[in-house]
């Protein structure tokens, strides 16, 4: 790897590459190496995955450096096994193509892998940054145009910040109830 790359840079770009594999987004600029660019719009990285992983409430912040080291170690071994020559100017996991990043994460999170629980946690919080923006208030996330909530089409709250849906039902009977239903509305 390039000798000018600091440990903090390695940590950031490696975790971003991991997050982008869980929920991919588009490159922030043409030179973006962390984001593979296999999807349009914002992904987990743009949704704040790194902020999420550094949120003390998650309980995984202290373990991030070792996870980064282990992930790059696994990437090196994976590349050697597959005969892939890695670009040494970036961390090994970042040097992998998207499909190889995804294949490696599936290996690490598969039942029986001894480190599975750590990788599942990392994936879980990356996904949460995208689908629920749990590192910031949902109202702030909506006000900021959070990429994940926008992507899933999360409906806006009412003016008081609460969700209410006046229209919620087709108001029709669509099916016959089971013939054995009891008077209490339960199965017999």
């Amino acid at each position, binding site marked *: 790897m390039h000798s000018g790359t600091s440990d903090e840079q390695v940590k950031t770009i490696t975790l971003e590459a991991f997050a982008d594999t869980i929920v991919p987004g588009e490159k922030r600029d043409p030179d973006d190496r962390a984001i593979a660019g296999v999807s349009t719009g914002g992904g987990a990285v743009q949704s704040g995955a790194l902020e999420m992983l550094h949120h003390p409430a998650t309980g995984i912040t202290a373990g991030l450096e070792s996870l980064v080291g282990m992930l790059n170690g696994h990437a090196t071994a994976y590349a050697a096994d597959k005969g892939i020559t890695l670009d040494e100017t970036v961390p090994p996991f970042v040097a992998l193509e998207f499909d190889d990043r995804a294949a490696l994460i599936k290996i690490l999170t598969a039942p029986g892998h001894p480190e599975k629980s750590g990788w599942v946690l990392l994936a879980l919080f990356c996904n949460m940054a995208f689908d629920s923006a749990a590192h910031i208030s949902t109202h702030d996330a909506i006000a900021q145009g959070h990429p994940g909530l926008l992507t899933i089409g999360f409906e806006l709250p009412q003016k008081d910040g609460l969700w209410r849906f006046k229209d919620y039902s087709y108001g029709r009977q669509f099916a016959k109830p089971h013939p054995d239903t009891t008077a209490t509305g339960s*199965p017999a």
Partner: protein
Amino acid sequence: MSTETTDVLIVGSGFGGAIAAYHLATGGAKVTVLERGPWLQAEDFDHDYLLGKSYTRAFDFVAGDGMSILSGNCVGGGSVVYFAALPRAPRFVFERQGSIGRRMWPAAIDRDTLDPWYDRVSSAIPVKQQTWDDISYAGGLWAAACDNAGRTANPVPVGIDNGKCTNCNWMMAGCKFDAKKSLLFNYLPGAVAAGAEIRPLHEVQRLERLDDGGYRVHYLHVDEEDYRITTGGGTIEAKIVILAAGAGATPVILQRSEAELGPMPHAVGRYFSGNGERLNTAIINEDRAREVLGLERGDGKAYEANQIGKGPVIASWDRLDGSLPEYRRYSLEQLYFPPGLGTILAQAPGADGPTWLGPAKKEMLRRWQSWLTIFQIVEDDNEGVFGPPPPTGNAYRISQQMLGRGPLSYDPTPNTLGAWAAADADVRDILERDGIATVLPWTNDLVGAYTVHPLSSCRIGDDPATSALDDRHELRGHPGIFVTDGSAVPAALTVNPALTISALAERAMPGIVAAAQARGIKVSYDGSLPDPATTKPLLRPGTVPLSA
């Protein structure tokens, strides 16, 4: 230093704890309830996914080996965070044999003998039947798809005041509108009015037997914001102990107590059931929903309403047929699962098979409003086993709130796997028919199977070899310790279990009151119930109603 004493010490304030607290307190006993979680009420229930809001404060998510459990963690327990679906268990459930080759339920209990107790809980909560005008778009869609496949579909009985419900679908964070009739509206205020004391953020660790036959209960204070932190603790002595900490915690407390109490029945921490639960996520083809099912919301949309509603409102009960073989009987219930807690497990069709990550999953997420989640509740094989307990609580806590790693292992047998496969195929048959949707099950690779209804880890039965409790819910070999939560239920129920857990707790009460009398407690059982028409909601001491 003086020793604190009480007549009855109850561990946990969910269904099993609240019902016990009500009857023992109204009967005249001094009742103390220790609840591990915080005491929350309407103004505390947030519409906010931020870590630290009620969405994480009120929950406990414990990942095990092959099974993860989501459960309530607050005063009122699961009733505060659940979806309030309250069907009775079908008749055949009580005749199940599972893998032990003989009836698992005690001879004294079947649907007929339990029905009067179901009736009591149903009037106290109260449980209501829904009309089709109450049914959310998601429920309507599921009913229409069932009908299209020649199936029936039922509105599910619920503990919801639909007049107050806003269909916000935030009920897993606690109901801000007081529409969900949790235990904060019936049994718990009734218990407190009769003198029961509830102490939140008190996590019971272990029990110790006293020379007089009573028990000393050891607890730790849990920090109100960071549950990883405990700040001292204490003990309370009681003549009777009722464990109702939930099926993921009750056996752990007993295992940890074994050094001082002596050997536990073999079934403590064994025969755990995840209630056979499994989830499928369908992506609805909006055009086909309109063309085939005739769905039209009136605003140009056919469906696109995943976010709107109130949890499960429609279930398919066609396979709740006692003439079918065991492990082929299940219900299929439409459900809402909010972001954060399960989206990662939903699978998209990928080039190399189903995938929970990557660009195919991202495309699936773009269609999130067209998701329909189907909850399968099959008959599993009670294959869960708890390993050695962690140093405190029921898990090694990872996150400030909610997330921990626990000692449960669950390796599904071919019976359970076959039941899930049959239910998966049935869901596909209903929803992929005529191109209405594409559907896949959630992956079990990441956190194992996923249950929101843990059961059976300390179950009742007639056979001491396979049940921890007798049919009066007393722990075998440890008189004066009773268990009234979901861990007492012998096996998976094929429907949502809250009403059955509660009916069993109601049924156990006359016997527990008699046991309390035998231990010198001045208490009687008069069969009264909280009146939903006159009971005022439970409020944390020192607070006033929002409307005051």
